[in-house]
């Protein structure tokens, strides 16, 4: 029987374009990680050959030590993780609660306000960044130093403006709309308050949409650049993406740059590879707009 060989070989050829394209996507990232292990001199020399993609020559972690000496890398990482985690948690809570109210409660002006909120989906941060900069500079804040005016150089200026957004509200609203209402009515008849309905009946069912909203928010926050660049002149509050500036200089030490890029990227890539189904499903679900 030769059916197996004839059916096998054409399908093998079908992998060829897939593999070629995969190499285009992998190589720059693989090159980044390999380069982070090489001294800058060797890194420049290797880029003329396939050695650029191989862990050969003088391999060490010395670029990582040098990067930590050049910039407060640990502080930047802490800032990014803190800002991202706080914003994700706040946004998931505020937006799911709001969506609950928009879908299940009856109140005056509900549909109008929801429509206005969802309209803001078309306003990217780039369009409001400049007036927002002036606005946050005039806002009061009560903190450890008592009442202060102006939010520049702080954590709250990077967290609070993003702690609710139209996309997250939209995702929760779409999901809640499809939940059966009988369960809610049953819980209400049994005397549950709306808060109890929210966290005992609705949220336990909202795992998939919570994961979707969390992943989208996580990516948007961790990778944010323009806004933190504008509001953090002080090193103390800078996230990793703004911290990159410490490595821009006349003679860039590429080995250190690659170490820093690897350090701030690989955790996200590992996170992605572990949860890749959820990541891809979250992007796909933004595409299914009703």
């Amino acid at each position: 029987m030769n059916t197996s060989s004839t059916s096998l070989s054409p399908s093998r050829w079908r992998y060829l374009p897939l593999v070629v394209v995969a190499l285009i996507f992998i190589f720059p990232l693989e090159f980044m990680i390999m380069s982070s292990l090489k001294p800058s001199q060797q890194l420049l020399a290797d880029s003329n050959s396939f050695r650029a993609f191989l862990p050969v020559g003088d391999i060490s972690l010395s670029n990582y030590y040098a990067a930590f000496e050049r910039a407060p890398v640990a502080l930047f990482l802490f800032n990014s993780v803190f800002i991202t985690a706080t914003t994700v948690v706040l946004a998931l809570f505020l937006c799911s609660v709001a969506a609950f109210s928009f879908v299940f409660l009856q109140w005056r002006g509900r549909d109008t306000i929801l429509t206005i909120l969802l309209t803001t989906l078309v306003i990217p941060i780039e369009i409001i960044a400049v007036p927002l900069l002036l606005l946050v500079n005039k806002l009061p804040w009560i903190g450890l130093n008592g009442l202060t005016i102006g939010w520049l150089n702080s954590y709250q200026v990077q967290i609070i403006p993003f702690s609710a957004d139209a996309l997250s509200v939209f995702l929760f609203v779409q999901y809640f709309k499809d939940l059966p209402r009988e369960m809610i009515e049953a819980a209400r008849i049994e005397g549950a308050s709306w808060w109890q309905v929210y966290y005992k009946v609705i949220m336990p069912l909202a795992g998939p949409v919570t994961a979707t909203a969390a992943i989208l928010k996580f990516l948007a926050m961790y990778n944010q650049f323009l806004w933190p660049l504008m509001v953090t002149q002080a090193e103390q509050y800078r996230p990793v993406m703004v911290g990159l500036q410490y490595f821009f200089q006349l003679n860039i030490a590429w080995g250190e740059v690659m170490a820093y890029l690897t350090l701030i990227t690989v955790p996200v890539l590992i996170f992605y590879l572990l949860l890749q189904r959820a990541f891809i499903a979250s992007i796909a679900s933004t595409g299914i707009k009703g």
Partner: protein
Amino acid sequence: MAFPATAIIGLFIIVPFLLGFYFAFTNQRMISPNPTEYVGTTNFHQLLDLGVLTLEPERDPATHEVKKDVSGVATYPTVRSITRNNPDMPYFDGMREWFSWHSGDNIKVVVARDVVFMKAIVNTFLFVLIVAPLQGAIALLLAMMINQKLPGINIFRTIYFMPVVVSIVVVSLLWRFIYSGDNGLLNAILGFFTFGTFNPVDWLGNSATALGSIIAMSIWQAVGFHMVIWLSGLQTIPVSLYEASDIEGATSWQKFRFVTWPGLRNTAILVLVVITMQAFTLFSQIAVMTQGGPVDATQTIVFQAVQHGYAKQDIATGSAISVILFIIVITISLIQRYLTREKLA
């Protein structure tokens, strides 16, 4: 219960959005000892004023002969002689040459009050016009490749999507090295495949290649995102339609043209709108890779908004640029919506 989220979106998105429209008509600065004043449309004139000058060759006042320089070329008055201290043409005061062409004996010169902003608008449109169709098409091609029924196909989906989770700032700095002129990886790879006949190019340092290089990198980073959106569209097309066309003996192209593409209509609109919106806000790549250079070849609208509103602390001009960008984006998306509207049979 909806109050906190509504208040935050109201205060940090809707209020600054409206403030932007207000500031655009004032002389608001980040910090200023003087009170803010209403200035009408001055900011928009500063950014958008254009004019066309016709330069006639200089003639000898006595003979009316055209003056020639030593090499026999007609001489023309300079643009500056018209746009500086010229009370006869006050509108042109302070304008600079954007571009010019010969028209018979005369030279036509297009002058602009803010030449850099004009270049930013042109570059942004170029970026959108190239990225939107190209990235959309490549994403569709990739989506069809990974929609095949092959063992292990999900590995490829995972790989193609990978750059999407990497920050565009990281990608930009990484590609700055790849694009570098003397030790760049891209030059080395092109040299290898052309057996050394390829002349190294300083991709970002050359005004002819800088924008194209940024376009290629941007597509590499973001194409997986739109691939996933296309893929979810592809998977809504019933398999039975393909089986039926197999029975009819349809070719691959016919299957794409008459089954796949009509089934993707709504997805196509979504992908087009999303890429267009993202492309119009091009900023990070510019900030990390070129700072608008070389010679303004990669200036963009958002980069200019940040230059004015943040670097120069000129909130009014930054806001005016944001308003211009918003009007462009809204106009384009309304046009797209009109062109892709549900056609009634």
